[in-house]
């Protein structure tokens, strides 16, 4: 069992947790992920590492409540535990001094882009960060991103905060400015955002790294459910990734595979909400 030692509510649907897992924290690096399983009936959920504290043996995860498992996880409080916590999995980000780089974080993808931006900054890069979300409520860690970036651009789809635009717009402007000499781009967020980031950087021929979060079970190369098509064949996100060259990814195949269990996800959520309502009603009745 792995104890939740801290919880922060970043928005209605975005939660942060520090989880006690020294065996993961001792080796964790930016770009890697963990697999968490809430209880004996739980599924194995891959989440990218948002931060770590080796001395305290802590791993920070940030997740958006989108389905049954993330909703259930979001209900846990400090002092509660999760049944399994495995990692660090996947390859860490390849960090060196590239010169000027852009880090793009969309939605909950702001969490995993943060340690990457930090390490890139520490390695001497000029870091320009772009973070975006649908609206102001879904934004978080602006201060932390600011602290590790030479320049930070914030945007929202609805204009409730920062620029009213999608992340690819400022990205194109920066890439179009030849003075800036952008050497590399990192992008983490919804698959559709990463697809468009890759499409935006392609004409400029700037190497673009994306971090994929596909359907997976074990996270150690055993199931192959996470496989992604690159232009030279299939790869496993869990052991060959999670970071890939965004220009090589077959995005349509990826997006289609992400949809495969949508109906089951809906059923699981519906059953869970129903159960929660019954429990809520029972608790009401008992008062």
């Amino acid at each position: 069992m792995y104890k939740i030692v801290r919880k922060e509510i970043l928005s209605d649907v975005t939660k942060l947790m520090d989880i006690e897992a020294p065996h993961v924290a001792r080796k964790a690096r930016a770009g890697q992920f963990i697999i968490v399983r809430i209880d004996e009936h739980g599924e194995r959920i891959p989440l990218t590492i948002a931060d770590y504290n080796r001395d305290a043996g802590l791993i920070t995860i940030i997740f958006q409540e989108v389905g049954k498992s993330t909703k259930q996880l979001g209900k846990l409080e400090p002092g509660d535990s999760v049944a399994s916590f495995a990692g660090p999995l996947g390859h860490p980000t390849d960090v060196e001094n590239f010169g000027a780089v852009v880090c793009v974080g969309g939605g909950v993808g702001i969490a995993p882009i943060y340690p990457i931006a930090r390490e890139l900054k520490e390695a001497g890069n000029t870091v320009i960060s772009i973070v975006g979300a649908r609206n102001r409520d879904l934004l978080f860690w602006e201060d932390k991103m600011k602290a590790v970036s030479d320049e930070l651009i914030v945007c929202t789809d609805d204009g409730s905060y920062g620029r009213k635009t999608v992340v690819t717009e400022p990205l194109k402007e920066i890439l179009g400015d030849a003075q800036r000499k952008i050497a590399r781009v990192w992008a983490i967020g919804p698959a559709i955002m990463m697809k468009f980031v890759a499409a935006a950087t392609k004409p400029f021929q700037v190497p673009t790294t994306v971090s994929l979060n596909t359907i997976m079970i074990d996270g150690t190369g055993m199931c192959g459910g996470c496989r992604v098509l690159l232009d030279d064949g299939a790869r496993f996100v869990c052991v060959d990734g999670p970071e890939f060259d965004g220009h090589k990814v077959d995005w349509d195949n990826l997006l289609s595979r992400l949809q495969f269990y949508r109906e089951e996800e809906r059923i699981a959520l519906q059953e869970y909400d129903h159960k929660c309502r019954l429990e809520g009603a029972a608790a009401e009745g008992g008062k």
Partner: protein
Amino acid sequence: MAELTQKERMKIKRHDMPNQDQVVRRGNFEEVALGYTEQTARVEAERCLQCKEPKCIKGCPVGVLIPQFIKALREGDMVKAVEWMKVKNNLPAICGRVCPQEVQCEGNCILAKKGEAVAIGRLERFVGDYELAERTCPLVKAPKTGKRVAVVGTGPAGLTCAVDLGRQGHEVTMFESLHGPGGVLVYGIPEFRLPKGVVHGEISYAVECLGIDIKTDHVIGRSFTLDELLSDYDAVFLGTGAGLPSFMRIQGINLNGVMSANEFLTRVNLMKAYRFPEFDTPVKIGKKVAVVGGGNVAMDSVRCSLRLQALLAKQSGGEPGEAHIVYRRSADEIPARAEEYHHAQEEGVIFDLLTNPVEIIGDEKGCVKALRCVKMQLGEPDASGRRKPVPIPGSEFEMEMDTVIMALGTSPNPLVFVDATGLERTKHGTAVADTETGRTKKQRVWAGGDIVTGAATVISAMGAGKRAAADINSFLKGEAPWA
């Protein structure tokens, strides 16, 4: 029973094991083979001729003292039978269910020459189940040696090795990457063939007796590397199996509805997807399922498919659908255990033999629509000694399918080789290790089971774990230093 003559023993017919009804069992995940009653077991045990030079033992990868345990069993001395069993086999309830006895102990039985072998596997299962329930003969730990051993992987090889080393008084820590121990016994082999209660029972019993520590969620190669383990432990045994699935290099492999058997079986067995949404992990199964391959994993996958289809039909009405085995060789070459092949036939699996997929065809949504195959014929024997299947020109055809499961074998997971300087690998990705001792090319590191042989059987992995444990023990005692 009075002492029988050899002639009388030979007149007794081999006893069938009762099975769950073949129609009923298609709709559930409960165990198919129901086991002998004590009465049947004792009469079956009377068939053993107690050969002076028993060949059955030679056929067993761990050398179970078969005539001895059978004799005790027929004399009604169950405690003694368990004791004899445990001299060589720590996990009899598992072996009795999953060993390919027909090519091992029973294949060597003298009675098999003229008629039917003693049902050694079924008797072993009977003794194993008795002990799981009664716990008459706990494993005993020798006085502590102060030596520490890390065992990586908690499947059959690792478990056997850990238990044998624990019995010798060494302090054993096991590392498992998944959330529970058992390896292929829990993620691969289905409930209806090997109930998870039996696996957990065997493991917890042995582990409690010997004070073995199991660290789950520990991915060696990531959380800790092999080199790090070597600085903490006197010896390391690698029993990480062959977990990496192979996919065919054909068009359409990344369509929705194409899965590795590993993914499918892990969802169903480890994550209990057949009980979704009570358990969170779902599995999607179509009305028309093709499982490509002919081994035990293929049989397990196709039989799980049938059951899922039946459960789905029960919930939603309608026909359950069909499940196929698509295998490029003929029935004679099917590598699966005879009983599994037989059970699959009984349950209504459709066998498309001498058939090989050439393309998976998708619809406009990116989901599997059909499997395009070519008919095969058997040519000259290949390296494996089996006749090589060759395509018949112009024989291509399509089968409508919505799920395709690839059961084409697996190779060792490369993660364990991360930061493991000096640990040699073959070009197939397997670890180089001595077959007798399990010693690898890296000092103080042993390996055994599928990580060395590539995908094989539970019992051969147990055999390798056992031989390695013996050598590790000699090494730790200073009797067999590393050359």
